[in-house]
C-alpha cells in the first residue's frame, strides 16, 4: 500500500511537471539520483510515466548519479536498467538510456537538502 502511494505520488509529480513543457527544441530528460536508495522503489509506474512523457515529447533519457560510490551505483543501476530492458519497459526510447556522473560541488560549498 505504501509502495503504491509512493509511486503514485512520484508518478503524479513527474507527469505534472513534464506535461507543461511545450518547447519544440526539448531533447533531453535527466533523472537525478542523489541517493542510490531512490532507485529501489522504481516500479512499473515510473517507466509508464516515462513512456507517456515520451509519447508527448520524444527525449533522450539520462540518469545522473550524485553519489559517493559512483562505480558501485553505476553497476547496480546498469543491472536494473538491463532488467527493465529485458522486460520491455524501455522499448519506447529511441536510444538506450545513458548514465552520467555528477560533477562535485566545490569543497565547503555543499549544502545538504533535507529529505
Amino acid at each position: 500500500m505504501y509502495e503504491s502511494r509512493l509511486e503514485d505520488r512520484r508518478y503524479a509529480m513527474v507527469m505534472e511537471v513534464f506535461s507543461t513543457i511545450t518547447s519544440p527544441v526539448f531533447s533531453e530528460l535527466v533523472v537525478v539520483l542523489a541517493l542510490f536508495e531512490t532507485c529501489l522503489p522504481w516500479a512499473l509506474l515510473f517507466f509508464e510515466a516515462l513512456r507517456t512523457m515520451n509519447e508527448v515529447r520524444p527525449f533522450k533519457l539520462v540518469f545522473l548519479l550524485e553519489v559517493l560510490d559512483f562505480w558501485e551505483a553505476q553497476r547496480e543501476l546498469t543491472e536494473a536498467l538491463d532488467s527493465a530492458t529485458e522486460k520491455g519497459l524501455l522499448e519506447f526510447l529511441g536510444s538506450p538510456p545513458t548514465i552520467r556522473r555528477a560533477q562535485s560541488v566545490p569543497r565547503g560549498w555543499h549544502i545538504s537538502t533535507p529529505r
Partner: protein
Amino acid sequence: MNDSDLCAVRTIGTSLSTRVATIWYRGKVKVDRLLGDPPGTRITHEQTLHLPYEIMEMIIAHFIHDLDTLKACSLTCCSWYIIVVPHIHHTLTLKRERRGHPNPPPTRARLKPLSKLHQLGLAPLIKEIRVEQRRDMIRWFMPKAFSRCDLRHFSAFANIHTLRLQEPDINLFIPGIKRHFGHFSLTLRSITLYNPHCTPQQLSHFLSFFSNLDDIELRCTVTFYATPTKLVPFSTPAPKLRGRLALYGFRWVETWWHLIASCGGLRFRHIDLREDASCAPILFEACADTLETLRFNVPAASDSEYSSWVHS
C-alpha cells in the same frame, strides 16, 4: 727502468690521454654551440625543449583543480609561470572563519585579501568571487563591512564572470547596489546564491541588475523573508537569461513573475529542478521556445512513509 716504473708511466699516459680527450670533446661542443649546431641536430633540440605555447597551456589545463600542482608549476620557469598564474588566481574566496576558531577575525580582516591582490596587481586575473558565510554565525558580508579602501579595491575587479554568495543579505545591498556590484553588471555571466535573505521581489530586482547574466543557481534550505523596500527600476538593459537555471528547494514563484516582467521573458535552455517543482509551470511556460534539457530528481518520500515502505 724496471716493470713497476713502466707500469706507472703507462698509467700516467692513459690518464693524460683521457684528460686530453675530455678537454678536446668539451671544447669541441663549446665551439659547436658558438658556431651553431648542424641543422638536423638543432631542430631536434628545439622540438624537445620548446613545446608550442598552446600545447603547454593544454597540458597545464588538466591541473586547474589541483592548486598545489599549479603552484609547483609556477616555480618551474617563467613561461610556465605565465601560463599557470591565471589559473592560480582564477577564484577569490572571501572565507568564513574556521570552526572553533578561538578569536574569529574582525569583519575587516575578511576583506584583507582585496588590498593584497590590489598591491600585487592580480585583481584583473580574478574571474570568480566566492563569499563564504555560515548560517549559524553572524553574517559579515554586508555593505557596512566595506571601508572606503575596501570598496575601491572591490571595484577594481573588472573581469568577474561568476559570483557565488552564501547567505547574502540582498535586502541590505539593494539600496546601494550600483556602488557594490555596479562594476560586475557588464561582465557577470553566472550567479549562485545560497539562502538569500530578501523578499521574492528584491531577489528578482537584484538578478535583473546584471545585464549579461545567463546562468542562475538558487539553493534554498531555509526561506528568509526580509522587510520589503521600494525598488526603483534600473536604467541598465535587462539580462537575456539564456543559459542554465538551477533551483534547489526554491519555492518563490513571485520571483519569476517579477523577473519575467522586468526582463521581457526568460530564455533558459537548461533547467534543473530539485526537491521542489512549485516554479516548474511558470518556468516551462516562460521558456516554451528555448528549453532543451530538464533535470529533476524523483521527490523523496517523507521519513515516515519511507520507513514504512522499507519495513513493509
